[in-house]
């Protein structure tokens, strides 16, 4: 029983190590960069899988939370607070190590927020926004919820695109690395490539393990109950508004955390990360992974993101994900990994499809 539950996770760890070894032997270390990015996108997708697949609440605004994390951490770690230096507040924050001095690309000394602090603040901010937005929005169902979260995503997109402080169409660049532990820095430098790969996949594996245990618990059952028959769930004493809000905040926090880490890894973030298309991409991956399947979503998400990041889809990148969404909804609404596509095509041709 215990072995059966732990085995898939062990296999995942084995695969992660194996992949790293293969890149070492075949001298294709550059793959690790995209694999690291794939793992961070995996965090967003896992959270969305919990929200959509298990709790049955769609969100077309998760790129907004991702961008919130990335942009806020980017802003705080690059914004020069030199003006604070002389003040007592500035020296207090510096002694507390909340502010750090560093040399930027041009050799000028800048004083900015410590990455750990900015990371925590950015994720906390995104969680609070998710709480405030989720409260009213999660009363909606189906298409209405999709529209409302879409609206939220568009607002975030237009805010980062239109604000000078967020770099408008350019976004941020020159974002410093994030020294998570001494010696382990989240950054795109080739010298720390392997460490970053393991850090990202380690975090993803831990998150996956946590979410797997969550969906198999009392909470997971309650979420699936809400998805399946919300009235009956309420009749069983399940506080449905609170559960929906909690899972929404959790998935938003995961998206924001991914945003923070990927932004420091890339050293940059641009408005495309906040765009509605990015949200649609996350939704498409959860759908193709089988909705209520963390493993399916992880598998399909890793494959598709890797192909996309390596540029296999070329300029048709967005079109591919849009197309995937249509094809999945038509032929395999339960996801690719547990579909019966032939039976589905037959029923579509006969026109016996319902709902």
């Amino acid at each position: 029983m215990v072995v059966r539950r732990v085995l898939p996770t062990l296999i995942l760890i084995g695969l992660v190590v194996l992949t790293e070894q293969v890149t070492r032997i075949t001298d294709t270390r550059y793959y690790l960069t995209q694999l690291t990015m794939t793992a961070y996108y995996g965090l967003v997708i896992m959270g969305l899988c919990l929200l959509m697949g298990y709790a049955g609440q769609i969100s077309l605004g998760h790129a907004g939370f991702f961008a919130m994390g990335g942009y806020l951490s980017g802003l705080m770690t690059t914004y020069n607070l030199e003006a604070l230096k002389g003040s007592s507040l500035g020296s207090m924050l510096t002694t507390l190590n909340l502010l750090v001095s560093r040399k930027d690309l041009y050799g000028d000394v800048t004083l900015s927020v410590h990455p750990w602090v900015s990371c925590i603040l950015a994720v906390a901010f995104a969680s609070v926004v998710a709480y405030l937005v989720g409260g009213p929005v999660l009363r909606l169902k189906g298409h209405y919820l999709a529209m409302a979260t879409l609206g939220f995503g568009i607002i975030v997109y237009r805010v980062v695109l239109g604000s000078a402080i967020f770099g408008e169409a350019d976004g941020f660049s020159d974002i410093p690395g994030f020294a998570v532990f001494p010696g382990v820095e989240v950054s795109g430098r080739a010298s720390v490539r392997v460490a970053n790969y393991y850090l990202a996949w380690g975090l993803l594996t831990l998150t996956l393990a946590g979410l797997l245990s969550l969906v198999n618990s009392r909470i997971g059952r309650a979420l699936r109950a809400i998805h399946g028959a919300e009235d009956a769930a309420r009749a069983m004493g399940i506080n449905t508004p609170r559960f929906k809000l909690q899972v929404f905040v959790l998935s938003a926090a995961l998206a924001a955390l991914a945003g923070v880490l990927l932004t420091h890894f890339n050293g940059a973030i641009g408005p495309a990360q906040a765009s509605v298309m990015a949200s649609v991409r996350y939704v498409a991956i959860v759908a193709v992974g089988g909705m209520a399947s963390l493993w399916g979503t992880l598998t399909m998400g890793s494959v598709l993101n890797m192909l996309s990041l390596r540029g296999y889809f070329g300029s048709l990148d967005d079109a591919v994900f849009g197309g995937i969404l249509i094809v999945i909804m038509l032929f395999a609404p339960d996801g690719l990994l547990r579909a019966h596509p032939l039976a589905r095509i037959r029923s579509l041709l006969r026109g016996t499809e319902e709902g």
Partner: protein
Amino acid sequence: MERLLEVRNLCRRFGGLKAVENVSFSVKEGQIKAVIGPNGAGKTTLFNLVSGFLKPDSGTVLLDRLAVQDLPSYSIARKGMARTFQHMKLFPKMSTLENVMVGRHIHGRAGFVPSFFNLPWTWSEERRMRREALDLMTRLDIENLAETEATSLAYGQQRMVELCRALACSPRLLLLDEPAAGLNMRETAEMAKMISRIRDMGITVLLVEHDMSLVMNISDEVAVLCYGQKIADDVPLAVQKNPEVVRVYLGEENAQDS
């Protein structure tokens, strides 16, 4: 006997339609009470008002002397009132056992954080909930369905699973919305036996029903609704002889039967 449920002057309108108009009644502890009435009499509306799925325009619902009419349905469930639905609402893509375990929800306490971190005490709670659910299923003689997907069961079995899920809440008051709807004669008789057994477990039952044979055989008291108003409330024999009831309810039914 104590009054476990007391409904006073309950009113609810839908637009111009007075679905429930000034209805009062009570359910004593340990009783089986039935609410009957022709189609559209307001029975289901009354049920939804009592269980918190609808809010009344006016009137009070007292559960063990506590006013619950303004509480959300899930809070009322936590105060000891469980219910079933006329159109069964089992959780799809979940096994029968999981369905019943959702019924145990309010008797567990593992939240998001302990469950995410898989804390050891959540395992023993999970084992306990599983065992309690299986015990209850054994008592209702449906333990052999534990691993089957609940929504793939036969109709009569689904009714039994829904009943089991509601009982898993360990309610003091159980509300059954047309428990015999869609059941054949044999299944209806079984359901009647089951409802009597539930009462013998010490659970008070309020049921809305169409099937007169079921109601008259097992109920301690019967209230009759007609166009949103209560026209009778008495022991079954007296209700059957009540001329107004015969006119609006049995009379119509008899006329249709012939």
